[in-house]
Structure formats: C-alpha cells, structure tokens
C-alpha cells in the first residue's frame, strides 16, 4: 500500500474488466468536464454548447454520417495499432504509414496501366503493402540495431509527409489543376462509392470492421497471435521459447502499417479523389489512432468503438467551428485532455484506492 494525501493505494495485480471500463469512462467524463472550462474561456456556457453539439451531430442522418466518415481511418489505424501495442512495439508512425498507403493508391490510380476492373482492388493491395513495408523499416531497425521504436516511427512520419509534399508540388502535380498542389483527379474507376446522401465510403468501413474481427482472431487463436503476446509481455521468455523476434516484429508491423495504409487508400479514393498536401489527407488520424488503441487497451474489437467515439469528436469539432465559431483546433485540445486523463487515471488500474481514515478498515473503493 501507499499513501497519497487522504487516500491509500493498494497494488492491484490484474484489474478486472469492469475496473478497466469504469476507469476509462471515468477518464473520458473527467476530460469533458475539464474541457468545459475551455468553453467558459470562450465565454460560452459549456452545457449549452454540449447540448448544441449533440443536437448538431445526432440531429440528422447526413450529419451523423460524418461521425462514421471520420471513424473509418481511425478504425483501420487504431486496429493496426492495437496489434503493435500488444507486441509492445510503440508504433507512433500510423500517420506516415497512412500517407504511404495514400501515395501507393494514387500511383495505381493515375499511372498504372491495368484493366479498369482491377484498379480499385490493386489500389487497396498496394496501399496495404506500402504502409506495411514503410512500418517494417522501424521493426527491423529495432530488432537488428536496437533503434528506439518510438523515435524511428515518429521520424518516418515526417519523411513520408515531405515525400507527399514533394510529389504534389513536383512530379505528380496535376496539369489540369491550374497550379494548385494537387495531383490530377482519379478516374471514376479509382473512386469509392458513397452511401446515399453521405460521404461514407462504405467499402473501407466494412473492410475496417472485418479486419478488426480478423485481428482479434489472430491475437487470440493463432500461433502468430500467441507469439505476439508472449514477445510483448516477456521478451526474455520469448527468447527462451525460441520465438523468432525478427519474424514476429516484422509481421506485426507489416500488418499494423498495412492497416494504416488501407486507411490512406480510403481517404484518397473515397474522399479527396486525388493526392494533396498531407495535412488535408490525414488531419492527424494516425496520431489520434494512438489514443484510440490506448483507450481500447489493445483490444481490436473495442478499438472499433473507441474509433467511433473519436469520430464523434472530429464531427463535433466541425460543429463547434460552424455553429459556435470556435477554431477547429479545439478538437486537438479535447483529444489531448482525454489522453492526459487516461494516462492520469491509469494509477487507478494498478492501485486500488481507498480513503485513509484512522482506525477504520476499508472505506470506499473506486473502480474495483
């Protein structure tokens, strides 16, 4: 036990599911309370603002569909990240992997002479490979040269962002775009269809949900999943058990980056229908996905739901900008607060908290 002000903490070796859920929800609620202060800062009543945002987002199908649209890349990236996090590989590079997928898809869409019926499937395949291979680089760097994975994945994001900038300003700059830094528009056979009345490219959405199920199955029921969990939980035991680190980490990152790559394909083929500057393609989905995967505690199925929650945040950001006249960057503030609270609330998972009252045994418990 430890004492912390008026509280006593008792170590908790394996928190129950209910505890995890309770603590995570608690963290989110707490973050929203903190965010209320931001509304005050802008001179608005936070409860009215929340109500207005709620009405805006849930008010009609087209506006609610924006939640889904924003959630699509988050699902794909988030699910991929749960896989990496389970192997204790800190993939901060989903953003770059997403962009790599977008670049590959653009290449196939605009420049590859293939039968038109093959174009979209090939875009997904190449997007997956591009994102995956881009992510295998840090995996090999870590296994072979012990390069820190956080740093290498993060740095590769910048490299890929500059590659995209260079492409759209240079070799791939569209002649029909009147000097804007865009590529040409994709041919119709390289565009994903929308659900009627929305911008939801449902193929990618379905792909995300199916792949979440697939990754859950992979982790729980396959040899690779078992090796990922062993290597992640206790590398020493993995070595002892003869698990091949190079193979496991390379595969994990191929899949993790590949899923982010698919998200990139979805964004260019489903939303923009062209390649343009990185900040337009992604708006930081790859970074938000880190929180998505963290909040899901490495569970790919839960990541679908946490992705929807952050999709909601993004959609709410649009409303805040339009209806309340707040800057869109406020979404980043919200995300930051939520992540901050999650990490702060983590202490409640590894420690059982009670009130320290003299002479009395156990009083209240939180989240047990």
């Amino acid at each position, binding site marked *: *036990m*430890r004492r912390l002000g008026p509280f006593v903490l008792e170590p908790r*070796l*394996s928190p129950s599911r209910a505890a995890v859920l309770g603590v995570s929800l608690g963290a989110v609620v707490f973050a929203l309370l903190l965010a209320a202060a931001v509304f005050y800062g802008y001179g608005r009543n936070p409860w009215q603002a929340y109500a207005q945002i709620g009405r805006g987002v849930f008010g009609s199908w087209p506006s609610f569909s924006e939640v889904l649209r924003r959630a699509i890349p988050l699902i794909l990236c988030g699910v991929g990240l749960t896989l990496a996090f389970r192997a204790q590989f800190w993939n901060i590079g989903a953003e770059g992997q997403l962009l790599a997928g977008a670049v590959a898809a653009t290449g196939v869409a605009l420049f590859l002479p293939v039968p038109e019926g093959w174009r979209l499937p090939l875009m997904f395949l190449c997007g997956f490979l591009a994102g995956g291979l881009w992510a295998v680089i840090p995996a090999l760097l870590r296994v072979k040269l012990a390069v820190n994975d956080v740093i290498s994945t993060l740095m590769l994001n910048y490299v890929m962002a500059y590659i995209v900038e260079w492409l759209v300003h240079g070799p791939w700059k569209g002649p029909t775009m009147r000097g804007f830094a865009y590529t040409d528009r994709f041919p119709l056979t390289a565009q994903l269809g929308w659900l009627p009345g929305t911008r939801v490219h449902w193929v990618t959405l379905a792909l995300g949900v199916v792949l979440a199920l697939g990754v859950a199955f992979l982790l729980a029921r396959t040899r690779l999943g*078992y090796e990922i969990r062993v290597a992640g939980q206790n590398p020493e035991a993995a070595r*002892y058990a003869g698990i091949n680190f190079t193979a496991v980490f390379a595969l994990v990152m191929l899949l993790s980056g590949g899923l982010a790559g698919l998200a990139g394909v979805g964004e260019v083929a489903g939303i923009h229908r062209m390649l343009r500057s990185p900040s337009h393609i992604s708006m930081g989905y790859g970074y938000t996905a880190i929180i998505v995967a963290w909040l899901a505690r490495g569970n790919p199925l839960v990541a679908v739901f946490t992705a929807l929650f952050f999709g909601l945040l993004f959609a709410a950001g649009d409303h805040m900008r339009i209806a309340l006249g707040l800057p869109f960057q406020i979404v980043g503030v919200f995300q930051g607060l939520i992540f901050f609270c999650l990490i702060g609330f983590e202490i409640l998972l590894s420690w059982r908290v009670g009130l320290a009252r003299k002479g009395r045994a156990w009083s209240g418990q939180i989240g047990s």
Partner: protein
Amino acid sequence: MVGRLHAPTPLPSRPALVLLKDITKRFPGVVANDRVTFELRPGEVHALLGENGAGKTTLMNILYGLYRPDSGEIWVKGRRADIRSPRDAIRWGIGMVHQHFKLVLPHTVAENVALGLAGTPFWAPARAVAQKIRELSQRYGLPVDPDRRVWELSAGEQQRVEILKALIRGAEVLILDEPTSVLTPQEAQELFKVLSRMKEDGHGIIFISHKLDEVLSVADRITVMRRGRVVGTVLAQETNKTELARMMVGREVVFRLTKSTCQPGEAALRVQDLYARNDRGLWALKGVSFHVCRGEILGIAGVAGNGQRELVEVLTGLRRAERGKILLLGREVTNRSPRLLSDLGCAHVPEERIRMGIVPALPVEENLILKRHHRPPFCWRGLLRPRAIRSFAHRAVEEYAILTPSLRTPAKLLSGGNIQRLILARELSGRPAVVIAAHPTYGLDVGATEQIRQLLLRQREEGAAVLLVSEDLEEILELSDRIAVMFRGEIMGIVSAGEASLEEIGLMMAGERRSPVRSEGT
C-alpha cells in the same frame, strides 16, 4: 505433541515486538491468510514455515504495509499499529528483504541506501550515508563497499545491502523472505552470524525458508502455516525435521529417495572444449568438456558464478559458444536456435523462473504450452487449438499438483513454488531426451522438493539424460550418478557419486584440480 503445540506460551516480560492478531486476507478464489496470529519477541529469530502457497509472503506483505488485511490487527511493541505503506512500516521499525531484491542496479551501494532515506541531505546524499554504512557493516559483520555499483555485486552481497538498508532506517524487526535460496552455503553461514549479532542487540527477525535443517539451526521458535492457517508454533529445540514436515504437509514425508542403479545408455549430450563469454565479455567457460548418457543424471556442483549459468545458456541456445562443440543425440547443435534445440527434445528448467520461465500476464494454460505452442496437438496450420490446450492443462495441473484458482488465472498470481511447478510440468511432460535443470527445487517446500526430485529420477529411469545444476550439495549428492565440479569456468573433475567424498568435492569447489588419471574413471 498436540499438547505442546497449543500450550499457552509463557508471558514475556516485555511486550512482543510484533503481534499479528487474527489476520485474514482473501484474494479472488483463495483465502491467503485465515485468522492468522503470529508473535515476534525481542531477541528472537522466529521462522515461518509452510508449503508453497500457504500464505507466508502474504502475511509478511501485510505486516510491511504492502497489502491491507481484510480483518485483524497489528500491534507493535504493545501499541496498535496502523500500517498502510512500507513507509509506515519503516516508521514502526519494520524492515523487509524481499526474495527478489529491489535495488537500482546501475547505482552504487551508498546511493541505493540513501534512496528514500529520511534526513539525508539533498546534495550528495550518498556521501553522507557512506560513513553510516561503514559503521553498521563493522558492527554486524556485513562487509560491503559503499562505492561499488550494485550490478557488480553477487546475490549475497546484494542481500547484505538490503539488510543494511533496513538497519540504517532503524529497523528493529527484520523480515527475510527466503533469504538463503539465493546464497551459497558459505554466504548463508555468514548471514546466520549476522542474524545472531542482531539478536544480541534485541532485534527480532522473521525468517521464511523451506530448508528445514537451516530453520532448525537458526530459529528460536517456528510457526508452521498450512493453507492460510497457523498449524502451530513450536520451540526449535524441542522439534525435529520429521515433525515439522508432518505439520506442514499434514502427512509423513519420506526423506529417503528410492533410486535404482544407473544403467547409462549412449551419450545423449556431449560437450567438447566449450568456450563462452559472460555478459561483461569476460571468459566464463574455458574449455569445458563432458557428456551425459541416457538414463543418467550428471550433477554440476560449484559455488554460484563459476560459469554454471553461462554453461546452461550455451547448451540451450541462449548464448553463443565462441569455440567448441555441442552434440545433441549425435547431431551437432553448436549455436543453433533455442527452438531447434527444444524441438529436438532438450528441456530447460531455467534458473530465473519469473524473468524467463513464464509470461506473467498470460493465463496458466497458455504458459503451459510455451515452447510447444507451434506444434500439434496445440497448433495446427498456424491455428491454436483451445480444446487440446485446455485438456493438456487440466492434466498437467492435476499431475503436478499446481495450486491455481483456475486455468485462466494469470501465472503471476501463483505463489513462487507453484510457478516452479508450472515450469516443471511444461518441461517434463513432453518426454524430453535431455533435461537441463538449473536449481529445479529452488524455493519449493519439502513435499514439492521430494516430488520434483522423484520426477527427475523418473525422467532418468525413462531414459532421459539429465544435467542437474545446483548449489545444493545435498541435492547433487542425492540425485546424481556422476558429479562434475566447476570452478572459474573449468571443470575441476568428474567423480562418480558412489566414490565421491564431501571433502574431495569441497576441495574441487575451491579450485583444486582432481588428478587427471582418476577423472577418466567413469
């Protein structure tokens, strides 16, 4: 006997140093402590005995403020103590040396001792305590150099640092959780001398151990626990091994193993002129050669740190051999992967069970298939087969008497001894051709120790070649057919168990080479 167990202990003239009254602690699925009452008087060594999972560590963690009891009271020197954290415990004069040390390896001894010590200056805290360390280590005969870095120290020296840490914080009560399992016999003797000096100063010591001889020689009183309850408290002078074992297990324990005569087959493991370096890049093995036959146990004796760990690692593919050859079942396997070696039938009971032997967060059943998870019946075309895994786990838990609330319980929640059983169950159930066992009974209770030794003998009878590395000479003598003694990375000689005398082995352990003519004898 029953009468003596429950006779009221005479009232001490001074109040007890520590009195634990009716302590109860439940964990999901187990009652770890069930109305436990335990008393420690000034100037006594009070031993705590009990089978694996009996609740000894839990009780001590409660006294040290790491866990909160569900009910019960703690009294220290006649006053009710409300201990809610180790810091409170230290304030009440209670210090604990955990089985797994909690030192900061890259730091010096003095820095480790200064860490978290009240009243040390903010700047250069280590210098201020160095003097104090020297004083105390003189007084209690605990030689340590305050300026050495912890990673350079042997297990015994690290333990001395832990004890010093407790003493410098003013501990009057010292809890030692299985202190001798990491020590060489010499180091253990030194520890006992320290304890008796502390006793003279009026300190009280709680001593947890599974080694009955040791307990009988150092303790004044012995409390035996079984399944969370206290069976009784006896005076060490008035009891003996057989009685203690019966109290712990609840039945008679045989101390004699039945061992058939050795019928060695062909050599299953052959090592020729092996060289390897340790983690610091120094030579740890310098030309080691031996062989182990099927149906034979070769014991490797020697003081810890003479290359045994590196030898085991090289043999199991975890460390590179720089020179020399390893032949497994006639096939050269030098520097091949651990996976290949284990697939060829080489089982490995590792020395560091928690760090290497299990995946703490994974459930018991998944830990039981580690190393065989990639082969039928547990895996088929890359898919795990939960039914096969579960039924195997069921059998293993039953056959090896692993005490666990369920098969899905994370392995880290098992008690130390049960983790060891889990590892043994996994390694021995695959009918291995070669078993490499490092300290297989380390931390096991008497009953389990007997059981494991019996299991190793059964492996030998079934035709496995067993390489047994242990610092416990008694264990080596009891089990081995031949004994090799290691000193500074070399084998001083190999003797057959029948003709080995303790003096001869002792001399070899100290570095005396056996005359080469006789070492070819077996």
